[in-house]
């Protein structure tokens, strides 16, 4: 028994810094994990279908539901006029209706809801609703929106130094346009919600949302009830990636409305096609830049106008644009810089949060510019980047000191060796000289990513911990589990703080009745904010338990580990004779009438940002990293193959290194998809044509190179992060851009810079650049 205890104490029991298995892993691999559609169906369940707008812009002349209502199995049909509260679900700016009223503003905008006994009957009824629209000309591009002065929010600026003065007199100057298209989230679980009516006109919503608080607020708003009447309960999402931060709200409100009116439970689950057609995506950007630089490639002045295509309503677009602006300089110190952001309003589905949240777009612009500088000066893109890199103590254009800025240069240097940059470049030159129809290229992308919501008030987390008499611990926290394993990490934090094995800790669903007013699980902040809140709750309970142990074991220093309380002296623990088990201690505490439950709260300190001035301290700390990718481009088809990738990433002192590596791998793959194969194709009327996985291509297992190496930066301790860790979710997404720059490098070997190559660099777009380059060659 004693030996066993000793062994346990020395081994890993799930504490912070180790890599225990996925806390829901058993349920996942056995198929028992419940997603929304797997929740046992309540009796009398209604199935919902939405009637989406077929047009991108139009006036509603008539909606006639009489014929559809008369069909068998149809319980009710709702339109905007059936909304008892306010027809308004805009989270930041109140410009978004739940159901279309007067006009439709994008293809897929919900116009009516059918509630029926079965999906088949609901579908049949959809076809019988008469919707008469008067078509209006849609605005689809940022240029058209700018021409019409059509924005979803104010135009913002961040400025330092005097760019115009430098442009007027500089050794080298370039200007141009950088474009990226959007990206579909393609979470595997489509938008889903189950609404169950409750006493006194209330409703419980089981929603696949990253943002229970917003779902609660907006559902209450739409129903015209107090927020305490709406309960939102969320166990897990089948992927979110930002696509369910604000875009799950509409569906939840629609289901709430149906349950409210009929008094029956109602389920709405979008089909993949409906989901892709109706819901928002990553923002497309079209950015105009001007840059001045010297012979060495050092940037003297940089001006960029970031124009984002926000779609029909504001959604979180103003915040996305803000983050793009705050990342416009990426890892480079630029003394003269002007960043302008225009949130353009168009008639596409509302663009929304997507991993990186504007950061990747802002970074893409400056990385493109620096790649062009290197090409222009015939310098190694690595060297040009290194010459501009932030150094310790440097200040960002918005006035904040970049904490630990030296990490990015350090990583860049390490990556040069780790990826064998120089050797690869040599081999590529040899290969390209030999091969007429294939060209290889190599790309490198550094990342400096600011951590915190730029809306300062959102930087708060909350948690509730309950300890039961058998020592088992129930933790509710404000984050949503969507595959990022925030639950595993938070369970590790609780297990560490209470000194119990991970198996004692159960992470509960996020429920608005246990944690209130939570921030969305977004901005990579879920674990930081709510982990801190769990830490604070556990500190409060532990303080009481330690008071008890000090009474039970007077004048003794004790440690809590792996379910036991041990005697400790001068840093060494006596594992031979545990003083008491955690379970027995908890029981004693109960009989002593000590509170075994508590709430925890956390607010990130010192965050502020003045949007009008473009100045402040928006980030608590920064995440750094860099990636190198190598590709081969087939000049005859434009097809690319990704041959290798090397990444060094700084995640502080990782809470769970395997989880963090998994996050880097997953984010990288998403980034690769964004820059290569994932193409949103719209027709001239603003309807998405690539609205299913048959035409929209996210990476498969064959798209990830065998040679993929990821290293976490050693020795990085982040005093600002929970347990000295760093946020992980979004920053590694940017590594995908190294693949784009590898493609650019390969095409540059043809002698011209591929000016027109936007993200995604599809085979066809690459081929167009090859043709342009070949024609340019002929003309010479």
């Amino acid at each position, binding site marked *: 028994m004693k030996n066993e205890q000793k062994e346990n104490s020395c081994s890993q029991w799930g504490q912070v810094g180790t890599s225990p298995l*996925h806390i829901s892993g058993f349920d996942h691999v*056995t198929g028992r994990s419940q997603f929304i559609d797997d929740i046992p169906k309540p009796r009398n369940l209604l199935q919902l279908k939405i009637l989406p707008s077929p047009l991108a812009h139009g006036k509603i002349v008539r909606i006639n539901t009489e014929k559809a209502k008369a069909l068998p199995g149809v319980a009710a049909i709702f339109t905007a006029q059936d909304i008892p509260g306010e027809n308004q679900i805009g989270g930041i700016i109140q410009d978004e209706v739940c159901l279309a009223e007067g006009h439709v503003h994008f293809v897929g905008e919900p116009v009516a809801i059918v509630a029926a006994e079965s999906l088949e009957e609901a579908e049949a009824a959809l076809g019988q609703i008469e919707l008469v629209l008067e078509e209006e000309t849609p605005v689809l591009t940022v240029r058209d929106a700018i021409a019409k002065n059509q924005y979803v929010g104010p135009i913002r600026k961040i400025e330092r130094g005097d760019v115009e003065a430098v442009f007027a007199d500089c050794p080298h100057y370039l200007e141009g346009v950088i474009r990226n298209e959007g990206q579909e989230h393609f979470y595997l679980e489509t938008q889903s919600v189950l609404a169950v009516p409750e006493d006194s006109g209330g409703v419980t919503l089981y929603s696949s949302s990253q943002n229970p608080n917003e779902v609660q607020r907006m559902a209450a708003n739409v129903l015209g009830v107090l927020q305490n009447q709406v309960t939102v309960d969320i166990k897990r999402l089948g992927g979110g990636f930002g696509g369910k931060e604000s875009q799950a709200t509409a569906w939840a409100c629609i289901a709430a409305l149906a349950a409210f009116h009929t008094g029956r439970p109602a389920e709405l689950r979008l089909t993949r096609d409906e989901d892709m057609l109706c819901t928002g995506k990553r923002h497309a950007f079209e950015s105009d830049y001007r840059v001045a630089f010297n012979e060495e490639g050092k940037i003297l002045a940089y001006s960029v106008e970031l124009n984002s295509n926000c779609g029909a309503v504001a959604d979180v677009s103003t915040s996305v644009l803000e983050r793009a602006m705050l990342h416009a300089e990426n890892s480079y110190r630029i003394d003269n810089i002007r960043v302008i952001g225009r949130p353009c309003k168009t008639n596409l589905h509302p663009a929304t949060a997507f991993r990186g949240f504007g950061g990747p777009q802002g970074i893409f612009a400056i990385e493109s510019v620096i790649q062009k500088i290197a090409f222009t000066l015939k310098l190694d893109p690595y060297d040009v980047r290194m010459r501009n890199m932030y150094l310790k103590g440097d200040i960002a254009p918005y006035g904040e000191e970049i904490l630990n800025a030296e990490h990015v240069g350090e990583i860049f240097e390490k990556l040069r060796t780790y990826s064998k940059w120089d050797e690869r470049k040599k081999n590529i030159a040899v290969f390209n000289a030999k091969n007429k*129809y294939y060209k290889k290229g190599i790309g490198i992308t550094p990342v400096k990513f600011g951590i915190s919501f730029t809306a300062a008030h959102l930087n708060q987390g909350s948690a509730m911990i309950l300890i039961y008499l058998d020592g088992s611990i129930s933790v509710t926290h404000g984050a949503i589990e969507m*595959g990022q394993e925030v639950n595993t990490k938070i369970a590790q934090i609780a297990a560490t703080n209470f000194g119990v094995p991970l198996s004692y800790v159960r992470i509960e669903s996020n429920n608005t009745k246990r944690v209130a007013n939570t921030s969305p699980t977004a901005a990579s902040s879920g674990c930081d904010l709510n982990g801190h809140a769990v830490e604070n709750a556990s500190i409060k309970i532990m303080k009481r338990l330690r008071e008890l142990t000090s009474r039970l074991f007077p004048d003794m220093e004790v440690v809590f580990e792996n379910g036991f309380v041990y005697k400790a002296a001068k840093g060494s623990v006596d594992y031979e004779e545990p003083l008491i088990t955690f379970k027995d201690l908890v029981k004693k505490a109960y009989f002593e009438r000590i509170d075994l439950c508590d709430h925890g709260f956390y607010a990130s300190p010192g965050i502020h940002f003045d949007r009008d001035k473009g100045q402040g301290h928006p980030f608590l700390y920064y995440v750094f990293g860099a990636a190198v990718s190598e590709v081969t481009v087939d000049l005859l088809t434009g097809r690319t193959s990704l041959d290798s990738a090397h990444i060094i990433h700084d995640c502080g002192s990782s809470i769970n290194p395997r989880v963090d590596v998994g996050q880097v791998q997953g984010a990288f793959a998403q980034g690769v998809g964004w820059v290569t194969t994932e193409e949103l194709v719209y027709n001239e009327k603003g309807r998405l044509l690539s609205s299913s996985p048959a035409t929209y291509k996210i990476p498969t297992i064959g*798209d990830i190179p065998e040679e993929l190496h990821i290293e976490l930066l050693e020795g990085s301790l982040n005093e600002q992060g929970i347990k000295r860790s760093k946020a992980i979710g979004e920053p590694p997404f940017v590594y995908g851009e190294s693949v784009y720059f590898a493609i650019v490098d390969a095409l540059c070997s043809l002698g011209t810079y591929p000016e027109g190559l936007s993200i995604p660099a599809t085979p066809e777009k690459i081929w167009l650049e090859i043709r342009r380059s070949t024609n340019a060659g002929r003309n010479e």
Partner: protein
Amino acid sequence: MKKTIHFFLNGNLKEVQVKAETTVLELLRNKLELNGIKEGCGEGDCGACTVVIGEVREGRVHYKSVTGCLYLAAKLEGKHLITIEGLAEKGKLHPIQEAILSSHATQCGFCTPGVSLSILALYLERSNPTKEEFRRYLEGNLCRCTGYDSIRKVPEYLKELSVCSENLRPSFLEATEEQQLGFIQEDVFVDDGTFAYYSPVSEEHLIEFLSTHKELTGGNNLRYINGGSDVLVGIKKRNQHYRLLLDISRITSLQQISYQDKPQEAKALILGGGVSLSRVIDSTRESFSELSATVQRMCSEQVRSSATVAGNIVNASPVADTVPLLMAVDAVLTLQGQEGERSVPLRNFFHGYKQTENKPEEWIASICVPLGEYNFINFEKVSKRKEVDIAAVNSAIALKIEEGIINRAEVACGGVGATTLYLPKTSRYLEGKEMKEETFLGAFEVINTEATPIGDVRGSAQYRSAVMQNLLLKHYLAYERSQEVDGYEE
């Protein structure tokens, strides 16, 4: 004739009533309340609803992965359906599940049941799979969280668990296999008055049925299926229903792969109309490696395991991948109907967009593929994504090269017209010319006179035109490469 379906579900015999169009996904989730299977897309493109099917063929039970959304429940007759619920036994995880956990290959968990079952199908059929085989079986399972590296490492963890292939067989397999081998196959017929499904066990039964059920088979009421993957996408997503789905997949005579190898006669490969694409990959690797390689680039293993070359042809998609290759080598189809059979060269089979020589009541009994007439055959395909993607343009060539001169040339191209096009002018142009790069560059203008592509979501007209030309050159480059490889071997 059975009106209910008898099958084994994770080792237990079940009898269920289903409708003609009910899928395995619907059966499991809606009727049997087994929620481990997930719906991610409903069109076979994501693999979240992957399940394993065990079926008897040639005296042994074979296992394959299918997507439950594109596999009709009525097809389950006599088969063994293995779902994620069957994997862990007596509360103990299956080694594949343990390996997935250890490899941290599950994040949000939505794709995990499908991934687990794809891996199971692989290991049940191939004891020591290569990396390529692993990729082949998993490329149809989309995962948006992990980036696949951890999934790719599952076999390493399986090795670490030191399990042999035998341990990966769920315990109920042996007893079920015995029952399956003794299962007496009968025709299945379900009809709710709106939609019907009929699955005969022999051609005689099929012909008999056709003559006795005129009300179901006339006009465009009838649609033959084998895997049914493409037809089901039409049914579920585009409301393209048929009065009768006639499933020929259980007719053993259509399942043959044979060779015509008599002296005096031309050598040929005869593919039965019901032979799945997966079987084509495995069984033509030696005899017609180019066909094997071509098929490997089509759809996913879950679809290939039931879909057929015949289906690929008869769907008449202008971007069908097997068609250019089979056209180039001048394959001949045997169409069978009540009145007997007739032969139609594939080059004459297509009349227009989705229009074929095939009459509604006819089925493709076999495809005769001439062998040995050419010494260089090649297929090229361009799509956005390397795997599990439909071509923007595809192209095939068959050449007989003697002493550096192209004596015979046959070229066919897809995605450049309303049907796959056999290109006689380009073919004739190449003949008599030297096997060198300039010859193929010279054919660029000729091919332009034979095909005028249009643009769509997969590629613009100008891109398709250019690629169509460039693929000619790629055929030549593939030849050059093949010569180099030969050089190394010497």
